[in-house]
Structures are given as structure tokens and as C-alpha cells.
């Protein structure tokens, strides 16, 4: 089973439990006799243990297990609540929190918690923790990562010896950092330092007690090294031992985290955190690098500038008609197209980042609604432009809430209808052509044609006369109309006055479409179609009088020249016959009140566009040509202009407006 989709759920819940434990522990400190608090903590710890074991986070599970044992002891009055005992539990909770954050940040949640586990075990066995005992520390030891191990192995092959040197400073040593520096200097002269415990930065900041451990590769003998170091003042003891590599490798297999003395708990925390990511980078360095998303955005912006200049160059080369120039510009265009593909791909994010939060949401909603629902997620690895990902979350939440609230029936109703009591909602994502489809299908009651019609008529969305001519599909589409809601009771889940019309407009603002299909009694299917990318689009440039407009190719079915006598009138509306379909003709010069526009000539240049199943013919003066353009916003001042979705900068530096076909197809 792929656990990734449950990871967010796990992290969220773990955080909640830890929060609860923290709060209860604080209360317990004030009222140590309150056993209900202990019970609460025990329950949270128990849940946490179960979850982390299921998710395969062993350190987490082990630590919670040990904590649970101690809590059990308190519950059974074998142990009494003392500040010392609480300190240890708090320490354990701190570890748990660190592990959860590490997991949330994409880490593996491993952490050296042996010290704390040991303390918990001792408490469980009735030994009260005391500060002295805690300070009794295991000797400093090095643990080598795979990478370091290879370095050491190589050094050995090249005839170097590997030494582990334990240096102890005198108790009255004042300038610890200075001594560390001198030790390092000496060792660097004699060989090379591979590793230090605690790490160098901490040593330099004097974040260690008296003792530190250094691994050195050198051709010198152990005696020479020892003498060199003993020559430094304020050094109490130097212990040089030859390191056998096999042992260390066994050690690194056992645990990647370095062992730390309990007395250095503070420092140890810092170190293991500092080391974990380092380890990861070493492992992945060959294949992956992390790039800040802002850098990608900057790259994208620069590339957009390039696309504009490319358009200008293409135009110039066409005008000059110079063979070599044309050839070079064509080459450059091809290369920049490849570059564009690469850059756009870098901005792609799997929809998983959005889908991840749904299992938890569905679980919670189902509980609130008293329904049993299973959520199946398919194609979570489908990738979409980051801009789309950022926007798509809310519409999906709405549709899923809708499916649970209005789609899936209550268990008894389902049973009565001969369906399994547990309803299924399937969330699918997949690529098709230049689009990504996201579908939400439920096996619930489906959309009731009659209810929708009744409501639509009562809300004045459709007239009773018009309603008679609607087919099922058209009736289902009515639920996207503004001011529509089929819930008979306004429930807390989806009947908040924000309807599916908001979903529809959000998706359309992303250049996508949403449609619905339904079978009464069997369920509904909401299908969202989204463009792969938003920022660079292919358009057809058209001329209307002196103005240039851009029509996205994704909306265009074809272009046509319509003769004057082929334009008819229906309900005072000009229409044309397009492949046997009556399509209304929208004169853009009228819609946009273009100054200096002339009457139609003998023939009208028309762009046939579609919105879902519906078509319209946009009448223009002439077609200029197809071009890749960068979609730009009109700015915040002009936030909503009718039938204009944005603007773009043409090759000659002028701005052309991009037509929003969705607004023009009725």
C-alpha cells in the first residue's frame, strides 16, 4: 500500500495528539492526582503509537510505546507523578514533536531516542530519575554515514591510517574554542580530519563539555599524533586509536544517528537535526537538487521576456525576408520551444499535493454526516502547473463535499436500495492531450432531474417553457447556475450559500471547463478539464478595424469565411449554419464597440469557438496568424473586463487583448 497519501493525515493527527498530550501534561503537573488526565494522555499516546507503527516510523513507535508503559504505571498507581518524571515525559514529547516535524518536512522521522527510552525504562522499573544518573554518559562514539565510510575506505586503500582521537580538555580550560582550533590545526598538518563529534561548528561555539572525538586519516603513526596534540596546553588527555573500518560499517548499518551522551542532550538535538538532511543530500546528490520555487518563477519571467522578443524577431525576419536571418530565427524558435517545454515541466507539481488532504477531510465529513464513505484516489502523480495547483484545491474541496453531502446516501438508505452501505467516491486525475482531467465520481443517488428542474424554475434560472426543451445533460448543467442549491436542508457541509457556480467560475478563470453527468440512483460524475499550463498559450491573432485581438487556440474549432447570404436571422440574432448546426454569429466589433469599424463586406471572417458543447461564431475583419504568446494580467485596477481574460505583448511591443470565449458563447 502506498502510504504517501495518508502521510498528511498522519502528520495532522499526530500533531493534534501531541498538542493534546502537551496540554494534559501541563495540567497534570498542577493536579498530579487527576487520573482522568493520565487516561487522556495514555489514549493519545496509544493512538499515536498505533498510527506510527502502521506508517512504519519505528523510532516514533518505540518511544511512544515506552512512554505508554510509564503512563500505565502512573495509571495503576505504581508510579507517582513527580516533576522529574514529567521532565522525562516532556523530553519524550519534544522528541516526538521533532520527529513529526522531520516527517512533515519530508524526512524519515528517525532520531536517536535511546537515551530517553532508557530513562523511561528505568522509571518504569521504579527507579526515580535523578540528574546524576542521567549524566552518567555512554562514551563518545562516532557513527559513520555511508559516504564517510567510503572516504575512509578509500583513504585506507591509498595507504593512510584512520585514527579516532579522543581529546579531553582540562577542567579549568578557559578558551575551549581556541584549543579546539589548535588541535584541528595540528591534525590538519599531520593528515586530514574526516569527522568530528560534536561537529566542528559546535566545537567552535564551545557547545561541548570537555571531550570531543575526531576522526583523522593520516600517514603518521599514532604516537606522533598523540605527541603533537599533547604539546598543546590545557589538554588533559589524548587517546589515539586505530580504526578498523569493518566495525564502523557495521555500526552505520545499525544506526545512522550518532550516539550522544545524555548530558549533552541539548547539543545532541541540534546535531542530529543538522545531520539528517546532510545525509539525505549525499544520497540524492547525483539525481536531484532542490530549487526554490521563486527561482523557477524568475526563470519563467525571463523566459516570457524571451518569448516576446522571439515574436518580435520572427516578425522582423519575415519583413526583411533575408534567407540566413530567417534560418537563424527559425532555429532559435525551435530551441526556445524546447526550452519552453523544459521550463514548463520544471514548474509541474503532482496533484498529490492537493489530493493528500482529502482522505482526512472525507473521513471527518462522513462522520459528521453519519455516512460511510470510502475515497479512492487514482492518478495522484499526474502533474499540473503550479499556478493551477494553487487554485484547484478549493473547487475540489467543494465538489467532494458536494458528493458526500448530496451524492452518497445514508447507510440505511443505501442498504434499502441494495447498494453496499459504504459509498465510494473516486477522485481521478489523468493527462489527455494538452489537458489534465480531474474527475470526481460517486456511487450515490445521482442528480434528480425533477428536483433540479423544480428548483431552477422556482429560482427563475430557467423558464418553465424553456425547461421542456432541455435534455438531461442541460438540466444537470443547471446546478452550476448562480443561486442554485439542491440541498433540501441547508446543511453545514455544502449549503453555505456558495454554490457550484463559484466552482465553475474558478475553473473557468483557470482556462478550464467543468461538466457533470449523472445516472439517477447510480451516481454522478463531475469532470474538470484544465490546461497544462497557464502562462504561455497559443492564440490566433485577429484584426478588427485597427485593433488586434488574440483568441486562445484551445477554444477554437476552426475558422471560416461566411458569405453574406449565409448569415440568417433567428430571434433578431444573426446565425450561421455550421455543419448542420445553427450557431449564433457574434460580431466582435459590436461587442467591443471597436471605433472605425465598417459594415460587413461580401464575406465575414468567422472564428468558430466552443465552450463545452456550445458553439459560437466570432466575426472579425481578418485573421493575422497563429502565435505563442505570454498571458499577462490586466493588473489589479482592471480586474474584471467583460469577455477579456487578459493581455499579451506582441512582437512589435504593443499590447493585444485576449478574448475570453467562455463569456461570448451563450
Amino acid at each position: 500500500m502506498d502510504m504517501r497519501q495518508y502521510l498528511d493525515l498522519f502528520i495532522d493527527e499526530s500533531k493534534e495528539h501531541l498538542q493534546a498530550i502537551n496540554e494534559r501534561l501541563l495540567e497534570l503537573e498542577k493536579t498530579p492526582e487527576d487520573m482522568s488526565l493520565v487516561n487522556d494522555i495514555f489514549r493519545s499516546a496509544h493512538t499515536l503509537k498505533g498510527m506510527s507503527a502502521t506508517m512504519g516510523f519505528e523510532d516514533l513507535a518505540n518511544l511512544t510505546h515506552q512512554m505508554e508503559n510509564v503512563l500505565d504505571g502512573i495509571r495503576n498507581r505504581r508510579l507517582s507523578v513527580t516533576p522529574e518524571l514529567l521532565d522525562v515525559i516532556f523530553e519524550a514529547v519534544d522528541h516526538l514533536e521533532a520527529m513529526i516535524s522531520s516527517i512533515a518536512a519530508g524526512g524519515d522521522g528517525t532520531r536517536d531516542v535511546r537515551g530517553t527510552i532508557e530513562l523511561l525504562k528505568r522509571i518504569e522499573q521504579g527507579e526515580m530519575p535523578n540528574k546524576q544518573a542521567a549524566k552518567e554518559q555512554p562514551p563518545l562514539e562516532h557513527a559513520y554515514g555511508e559516504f564517510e565510510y567510503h572516504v575512509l575506505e578509500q583513504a585506507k586503500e591509498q595507504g593512510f591510517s584512520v585514527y579516532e582521537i579522543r581529546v579531553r580538555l582540562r577542567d579549568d580550560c578557559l578558551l575551549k574554542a581556541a584549543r579546539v582550533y589548535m588541535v584541528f590545526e595540528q591534525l590538519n598538518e599531520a593528515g586530514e580530519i574526516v569527522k568530528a563529534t560534536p561537529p566542528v561548528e559546535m566545537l567552535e561555539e564551545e557547545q561541548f563539555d570537555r571531550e570531543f572525538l575526531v576522526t583523522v586519516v593520516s600517514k603518521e603513526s599514532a604516537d606522533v599524533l598523540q605527541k603533537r596534540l599533547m604539546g598543546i596546553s590545557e589538554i588533559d588527555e589524548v587517546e589515539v586509536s586505530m580504526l578498523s573500518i569493518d566495525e564502523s560499517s557495521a555500526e552505520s548499518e545499525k544506526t545512522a544517528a550518532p550516539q550522544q551522551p545524555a548530558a549533552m542532550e541539548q547539543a545532541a538535538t541540534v546535531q542530529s537535526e543538522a545531520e539528517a538532511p546532510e545525509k539525505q543530500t549525499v544520497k540524492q546528490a547525483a539525481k536531484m537538487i532542490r530549487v526554490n520555487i521563486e527561482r523557477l518563477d524568475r526563470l519563467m519571467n525571463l523566459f516570457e521576456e524571451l518569448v516576446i522578443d522571439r515574436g518580435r524577431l520572427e516578425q522582423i525576419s519575415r519583413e526583411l525576408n533575408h534567407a540566413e536571418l530567417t534560418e537563424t530565427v527559425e532555429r532559435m524558435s525551435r530551441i526556445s520551444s524546447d526550452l519552453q517545454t523544459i521550463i514548463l515541466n520544471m514548474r509541474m507539481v503532482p496533484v498529490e499535493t492537493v489530493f493528500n488532504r482529502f482522505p482526512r477531510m472525507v473521513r471527518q465529513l462522513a462522520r459528521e454526516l453519519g455516512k460511510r464513505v470510502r475515497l479512492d484516489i487514482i492518478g495522484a502523480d499526474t502533474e499540473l502547473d503550479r499556478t493551477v495547483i494553487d487554485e484547484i484545491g478549493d473547487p475540489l474541496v467543494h465538489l467532494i463535499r458536494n458528493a458526500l453531502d448530496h451524492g452518497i446516501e445514508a447507510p440505511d438508505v443505501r442498504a434499502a436500495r441494495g447498494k453496499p452501505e459504504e459509498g465510494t467516491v473516486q477522485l481521478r486525475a489523468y493527462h489527455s492531450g494538452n489537458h489534465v482531467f480531474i474527475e470526481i465520481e460517486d456511487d450515490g443517488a445521482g442528480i434528480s432531474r425533477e428536483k433540479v428542474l423544480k428548483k431552477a424554475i422556482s429560482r427563475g434560472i430557467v423558464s418553465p417553457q424553456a425547461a421542456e426543451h432541455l435534455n438531461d445533460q442541460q438540466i444537470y448543467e443547471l446546478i452550476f447556475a448562480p443561486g442554485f442549491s439542491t440541498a433540501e436542508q441547508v446543511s453545514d457541509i455544502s449549503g453555505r450559500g456558495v454554490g457550484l457556480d463559484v466552482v465553475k467560475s474558478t475553473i473557468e478563470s483557470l482556462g478550464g471547463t467543468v461538466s457533470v453527468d449523472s445516472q439517477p440512483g447510480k451516481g454522478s460524475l463531475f469532470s474538470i478539464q484544465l490546461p497544462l499550463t497557464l502562462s504561455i498559450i497559443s492564440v490566433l491573432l485577429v484584426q478588427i478595424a485597427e485593433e488586434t485581438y488574440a483568441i486562445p487556440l484551445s477554444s477554437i474549432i476552426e475558422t471560416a469565411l461566411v458569405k453574406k447570404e449565409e448569415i440568417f436571422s433567428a430571434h433578431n440574432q444573426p446565425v450561421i449554419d455550421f455543419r448542420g448546426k445553427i450557431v449564433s454569429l457574434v460580431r466582435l466589433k459590436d461587442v467591443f464597440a471597436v471605433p472605425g469599424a465598417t459594415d460587413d463586406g461580401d464575406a465575414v471572417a468567422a472564428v468558430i469557438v466552443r465552450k463545452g458543447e456550445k458553439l459560437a461564431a466570432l466575426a472579425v475583419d481578418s485573421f493575422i496568424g497563429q502565435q505563442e504568446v505570454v498571458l499577462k494580467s490586466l493588473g489589479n485596477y482592471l480586474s474584471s473586463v467583460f469577455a477579456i481574460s487578459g493581455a499579451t505583448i506582441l512582437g512589435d511591443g504593443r499590447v493585444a487583448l485576449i478574448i475570453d470565449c467562455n463569456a461570448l458563447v451563450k
Partner: protein
Amino acid sequence: MMASVQADWKVIAFRLKEEEYALPVQYVRSIEKMQPITRVPGTAHYVKGVINLRGVVTPIIDLRERFGFASEPYGEQTRIIIAAFEDIEVGLIVDAANDVLDLPAESIEPPPEAIGSVEASYIDGVAKVENRLLILLDLAKVLDR
């Protein structure tokens, strides 16, 4: 943006009809010469359209029309003042942009009931410097739709 600000104001002075106006420099990004404007249909009459300002599509407001003055053909002196207020960036067409001035705080007075021909609501105050009378514009009001 009230005259209660004690410090001196640094302003861009510009001409509109026969009067001089001022806009605090912190709202001014740049001053541009006239350039081709792409009309945006379906917007207020004073929105002349958008320009390509170094790759950023910027809306342009004709201040004469915004204030209901008679419009004049644009000439050599006509300038576009690119102004930014909160998250809005627009260009303002003015007859001429003359200079940058320091207005001492004490020279600024609250707007009289009616000054010149601009509605008092667009005005933040007036300043008298030597023989000049400058009308301080309230950019927020000008940009209010």
C-alpha cells in the same frame, strides 16, 4: 495621506488644464512619454486602455477625463505618470510633468470647499509655494472605481 504629516512633502508637480497638481513621490514609479495605448473595451470612459511598460501591462487613466475636464489632443508635453498605490499600478495621463518639489509641511492647507474645477473629494490639500498654488491629489480617491 493627510496634511497632518509633519515632515516636508516631496512631490511630483504636474499640469492639468491651467492648474498645477502634486503627487507625493512615494507613489510615483516613473514618468513616461506618450506611447501607443491599447483600448480596453467595456471600461470607464477615463480608462484609455493599457500600455506595455517594460513587459508589464499597465492600465492608463486620462486624468482630464477622470476629473470631467474637456479632453485635449495629446501633445509633445503630454506625460504618463506611473503611480502605484497598494497593489494597484496605473499610468496617469497629464498635460505636462514639470518638476520635483519639496513642500514644507506648514505650506500645506486642508482643501477648501471647492478649488479650481476638481471636485474637493479628490484633493488632499493645497500648498502655496512662492507664487504657485499646488493641488495635492488623493491618489486613493482617484483610483477608487
